[in-house]
């Protein structure tokens, strides 16, 4: 109960922080939708079956986008907020990167995931003349499961990023390459190799597959997918928590410099 109260308190703080940055959220939303339209309209148009392309790639974009935001939020905490002293204030109150990720997870998944997905789907369906029945998921329950599954995956991706950023000397520019790499398994479906299970190295693949399954375009068999999700998703939260503690211990010993 105490843990849940703490989580809700953090989310409450995150909601207020998001309200302060409302204009930035709106701008980022419009910006990301336009970028996705620019990159993915040709991807759909060059495909043999436009509807199949939409149902395969757009759920992947939703998941990739949330993974990308998890990386950005982490780098924000460890780079920009270090410069402004907010990272220290957070840590002085016994809160680490895991807590910071919890403050924004619901906003990021709603705004950068769901809202951006809705706007993108509307924009692309307009470009590609796809009807509403094809745009909407055939199995809404699976789609909701995918959205909920984004929470532990967001936390894991954020924690791994934090660990890599704190223990190594990589600059934040290299995090952009990580944001591109997570397209493998999300936007790029895991059917391009003979063994699809290799793609599970990317934690976001399972969620992308669940989202694709809601359209009937999944590569992994649905039962296998649900079984894997039941095991891995709770595991992601635990692993994310311990990785965050490790990065925090590292910061306590060595400090964290502001770097580009």
């Amino acid at each position, binding site marked *: 109960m105490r843990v849940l109260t703490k989580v809700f308190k953090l989310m409450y703080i995150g909601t207020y922080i998001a309200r302060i940055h409302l204009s930035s959220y709106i701008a980022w939303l419009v910006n990301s939708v336009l970028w996705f339209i620019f990159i993915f309209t040709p991807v759909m148009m060059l*495909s043999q079956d436009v509807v199949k392309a939409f149902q395969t*790639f757009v759920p992947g974009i939703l998941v990739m986008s949330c993974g990308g935001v998890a990386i950005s939020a982490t780098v924000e905490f460890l780079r920009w907020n270090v410069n402004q002293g907010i990272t220290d204030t957070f840590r002085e109150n016994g809160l680490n990167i895991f807590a910071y990720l919890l403050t924004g997870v619901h906003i990021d998944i709603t705004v950068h995931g769901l809202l951006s997905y809705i706007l993108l789907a509307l924009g692309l369906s307009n470009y590609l003349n796809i009807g509403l029945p094809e745009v909407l998921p055939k199995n809404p329950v699976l789609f909701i499961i995918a959205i909920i599954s984004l929470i532990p995956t967001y936390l894991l991706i954020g924690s791994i990023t934090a660990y890599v950023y704190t223990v190594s000397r990589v600059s934040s520019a290299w995090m*952009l390459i990580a944001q591109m790499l997570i397209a493998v398994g999300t936007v790029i479906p895991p059917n391009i190799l003979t063994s699809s299970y290799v793609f599970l190295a990317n934690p976001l693949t399972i969620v992308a597959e669940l989202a694709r399954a809601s359209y009937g375009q999944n590569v992994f068999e649905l039962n296998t997918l649900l079984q894997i999700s039941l095991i891995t998703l709770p595991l992601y939260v635990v692993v994310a928590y311990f990785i965050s503690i490790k990065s925090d211990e590292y910061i306590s010993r060595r400090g964290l410099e502001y770097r580009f």
Partner: protein
Amino acid sequence: MVFIGLLNIVLALIYRELVWFRRFLADYVVSWVFASFISLSIILIPMSISDVNIVVLRFSSVVGMELDLSTALLVSILLSSIVPVVAVCVNDVAHVIFAEFKFIDVGPLILGSTKLKYYLLANAFVRSSLMTLGITIYLLPVLIYALSFYGLLVFLIVELSLQISAIILGLYITLVASLITFYTNVSRPWVVANLLPPLILSGSGIYIPTYVVPLILRVFAYITPIPYVSRVLQTVAVCLSLPEILTFLIVAVVLLTSYLVITTVFSSRLEFRVRR
């Protein structure tokens, strides 16, 4: 006297750009990777669910020429170089103006050393030109590898076209950034600058036929040379299409002259306001 003053600013800006190139080398490398990633993704991702020949055939119909897979990839690589050019020219030229006159407050130093008009014009020319060279240099080995000696010629044409486009974009964004910096009290001005590159790129229909693009987006694109330079880049890897190059050059001259005149007149009037 005016020439020497302008030359000193240009030299100072070139020095600053070289220092920043060293400092932000990782960002340049990422921009090369990002452009290559986009170019390959647009052709290869559809192949994960479609027949290779159909993807190439559809891309050929967009370009208006019959292509094989390797040429289609090369055309895609060339086209993707427009993406970082637009993103960097628009964002970075604007951010310098926002930062120097709104946040870091080195504006008084600049005004003490030179005229605002010279600084804004030199910044638009030097920053966009040098950054374009930095972010498109990866095309040189790619083109020489793919097309040998003809690749060098293609690179020169591509680089020249992108340089002209970048300078026009630099002048265009200088106008927008000056308006925001000196006439409004927007607390997050970079929001506007960040929004312009995807608007221009989405409206230009670089990888898709322009008639598919909604009119509202096309308006943002056609006040820049990007739709025309993309036509040059679509064809240059296969043959030197003179009509496309001539159309681009005519549009570029008109846009360059217009933006140069407007920016010069506007920044001259701005001088008094800013100094006051």
